[in-house]
């Protein structure tokens, strides 16, 4: 049994697949932190009485000086860029992952944990512990690239998949632990969606145009509740078959699209597909994009 499990976990995969995941997930994290710089600067200057540290930020008894929190966030962007490009990966990747962990944990230390940010941090931390820069690394030519055995890479991709599946499974279990099977009747989800839209209203924003008329039809929410739990508790099925994994990824994406439409809550990591990328073959997508770009460049040169 253990031998079978080990053989499955260490099944071979190309170095380029793991490298493509490093580039995609690293680029997402880099852009995400850079795009959030306004929010990061604002939260660094919030009233110290509102500081409620979570995770690694619990080592602090009081908030950092704003300039230091902002400097760490800026360094995080630079480090994550180097992570994405694979520069000095063995040294840079762990430092970049810790910088991301700190930056986003600190942002979450002001009374509200953003569940939209957990998985990207877990993925980056995991990637930092893997040989994800053995291919497609800046500064290395094809001949100097240090590609190992294909068995060196499959486990890392499975680990990313396992982390994605685990987070959805936990979300499903939390619903059963907190509300029990009553969660399935749809009333709690309906109330939650109503509360969320009301909160939008109380903070000067418009509620969802679709949610408000839908609240008058409770039976819809029974279907939504059952669907949500099936998706979340069914996440471990992604390990059974590739097609099942793809089908799960599409339905989980649709779930997040529904959350966006009904609650105006954006989960960018799954909505943009990055959370589900380890379930696919991103190196093929990257090659197609590169080939398309090369064709475009040739046409452009030909027309000049």
């Amino acid at each position, binding site marked *: 049994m253990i031998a079978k499990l080990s053989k499955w976990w260490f099944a071979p995969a190309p170095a380029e697949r793991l490298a493509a995941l490093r580039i995609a997930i690293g680029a997402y994290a880099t852009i995400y932190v850079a795009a959030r710089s306004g929010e990061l600067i604002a939260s660094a200057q919030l009233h110290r009485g509102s500081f409620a540290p979570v995770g690694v930020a619990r080592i602090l008894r009081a908030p950092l000086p704003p300039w230091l929190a902002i400097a760490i966030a800026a360094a995080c962007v630079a480090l994550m860029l180097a992570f994405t490009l694979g520069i000095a990966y063995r040294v840079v990747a762990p430092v970049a992952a810790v910088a991301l962990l700190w930056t986003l944990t600190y942002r979450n230390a002001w009374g509200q944990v953003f569940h939209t940010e957990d998985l990207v941090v877990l993925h980056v931390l995991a990637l930092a512990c893997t040989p994800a820069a053995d291919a497609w690394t800046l500064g290395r030519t094809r001949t100097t690239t240090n590609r190992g055995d294909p068995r060196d890479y499959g486990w890392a991709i499975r680990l990313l998949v396992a982390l994605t599946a685990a987070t959805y499974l936990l979300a499903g279990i939390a619903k059963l632990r907190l509300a029990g099977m009553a969660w399935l009747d749809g009333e709690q989800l309906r109330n939650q969606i109503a*509360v969320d839209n009301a909160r939008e209203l109380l903070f000067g924003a418009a509620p969802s145009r679709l949610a408000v008329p839908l609240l008058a039809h409770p039976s819809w929410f029974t279907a939504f509740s059952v669907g949500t739990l099936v998706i979340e508790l069914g996440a471990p099925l992604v390990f059974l078959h590739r097609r099942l994994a793809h089908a799960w990824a599409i339905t989980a994406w649709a779930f997040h699209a529904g959350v966006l439409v009904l609650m105006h809550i954006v989960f960018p990591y799954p909505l943009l597909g990055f959370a589900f990328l380890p379930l696919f073959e991103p190196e093929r997508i990257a090659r197609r994009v590169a080939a398309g770009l090369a064709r475009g460049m040739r046409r452009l040169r030909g027309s000049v």
Partner: protein
Amino acid sequence: MALTRILISLAFVGATLSALHRDPLDDGFPISTYPMFAQPRTTWFTEDYALGADRHGVTRPLPAATSGTGEVLQAAALYEDAVHAGGRQLAPLCAAVARRVAADPALRDLVAVRIVEGTHDVLALLAGEPRGGAGRAPRGAEHVRWGCPVVRE
């Protein structure tokens, strides 16, 4: 090498699933119990937030950004925390909100900020909201916890 990889895999998956051993409401980051959307809710909802008042005393909800963060949930947590802490936290928060209101041309009709605790029947609140009109619905009971003027130079 294989042992190291097994240990890394077990450490990450084990740490993530360790949330199962915590109280579901004892959330963390990035090891979360994912309590969002899981807690039982009724249609009655109590929230702390800020209102802007014009010179006729007519109030409307202020955008989250006037709290110091554009994130609605974080803004709600800031007001809740300040209301629980009382005047020593409400006074500087109200003053900071008033400064942001004064700097926003879209809020130039507002002359005062009120931080309130409101209790609403959310279905009634949403049903009373005209399409596209944020904050025009009749609101439920609101108790003012702090107030301060909007000072413009």
